[in-house]
């Protein structure tokens, strides 16, 4: 009986968690959206779309450690802000090349890669990857999310998530290794 009551309390805590996070962090959420969209109305849209995506898949959100949940929302808002921007300017996702043969080489995310380049130069290269690919990679690396969870959150197929992550890691590695030549 007591455990059932505690479960209800915990559920209520969880249920209130999202609105509390929104209230406490609205300033940073808005700033992230505005930094990409430069428009108050679109920034509102980015925030509400991100929260709606989380509300549709609350299990993904629950699975993230509490201390990382705000950064998870930050990433979602950033990703959606880019999508809104691309939609407005009718820009296609530059890296949707899923029909081509993908290198199946799998690179461990914690494999040490040596490079002559500084990290700032590598960040510039990472910047050229599509926003969805970067987000998928970050959700995998930083939040240890399952491919299926990333897929449902980014509204792309699980296969596409795997391919995007595999391709991005190979590209980053190649770019770093080319610096030796």
């Amino acid at each position, binding site marked *: 009986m007591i455990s059932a009551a505690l479960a209800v309390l915990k559920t209520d805590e969880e249920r209130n968690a999202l609105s509390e996070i929104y209230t406490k962090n609205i300033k940073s959420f808005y700033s992230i959206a505005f930094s990409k969209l430069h428009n108050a109305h679109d920034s*509102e849209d980015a925030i509400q779309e991100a*929260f709606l995506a989380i509300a549709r898949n609350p299990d993904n959100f629950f699975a993230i450690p509490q201390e990382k949940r705000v950064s998870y929302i930050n990433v979602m808002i950033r990703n959606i802000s880019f999508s809104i921007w691309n939609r407005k300017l009718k820009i296609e996702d530059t890296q949707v090349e899923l029909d081509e043969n993908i290198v199946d080489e799998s690179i461990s995310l914690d494999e040490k890669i*040596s490079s002559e380049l500084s990290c700032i130069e590598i960040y510039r290269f990472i910047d050229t990857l599509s926003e969805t690919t970067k987000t998928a990679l970050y959700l995998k690396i930083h939040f240890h999310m399952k491919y299926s969870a990333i897929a449902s959150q980014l509204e792309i197929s699980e296969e596409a998530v795997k391919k995007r992550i595999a391709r991005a890691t190979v590209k980053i590695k190649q770019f770093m290794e080319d610096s030796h030549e």
Partner: protein
Amino acid sequence: MSNTYTIEELINGYYDQEFSRVSVEPVPKFSIKHRIKMKRAFNLYQKKAKPLSMVSSNEKREMSLRKRVIIAVMVIVFMVIATGFVIAFISKSFRGTVYNDNTQLLAFGFDSCPNIIEKEYSLSVIPYGYELYKMIESEVRVSIIYKNSTNDLLIFEQTVKEAYDSHINTEGYTIQETSVNECDAICVEFNRDTGTEAMVIWNNKDYILKLHGSFTKNELIELANSNEKNGF
């Protein structure tokens, strides 16, 4: 100069840099449409939110084997109790299962014991007034029934250990461990409106012997002791 990085370090570093570049903007008054949509998102989240206990999380570990075994045992015990099948009965010479209204007893440790009745026992010491009434024999069991003038019965039973399988009424009665001439024994006393009745069962190394009649358990134990000492 060569640097080494992992993809993990680079991606984390990239996002740290990206978020650190964001300048803090003053939050405007949001539109009614935004507030409605946010309310809808929170309501949807509330509807879909599950209790923490049901959620798989990175923090939630898979249940250990030990915990799973404990839970499995608890479930089995619960099922056993629910179906009226309670616990095992174990004494020095007997094993059995305790049911709601009886206890099934089996003997164990019969490797070097006869598997048919090789030597028939009969009571050499018989209570006063009792006479041989009936004898029922099989390869594995001999039952000798004695009767007195008031038709009270005394049953002496000899069974090969391997074939011993008895159901004893333990609904409201308790099996107690005792000894008969240093042999392991159990006894039960039934106190009924019609009088006292008892049963003593002992393991005499070769066979399982039983005395059952309208006596107290102490009287039957004494009778069993006398017969063991007299060598039947």
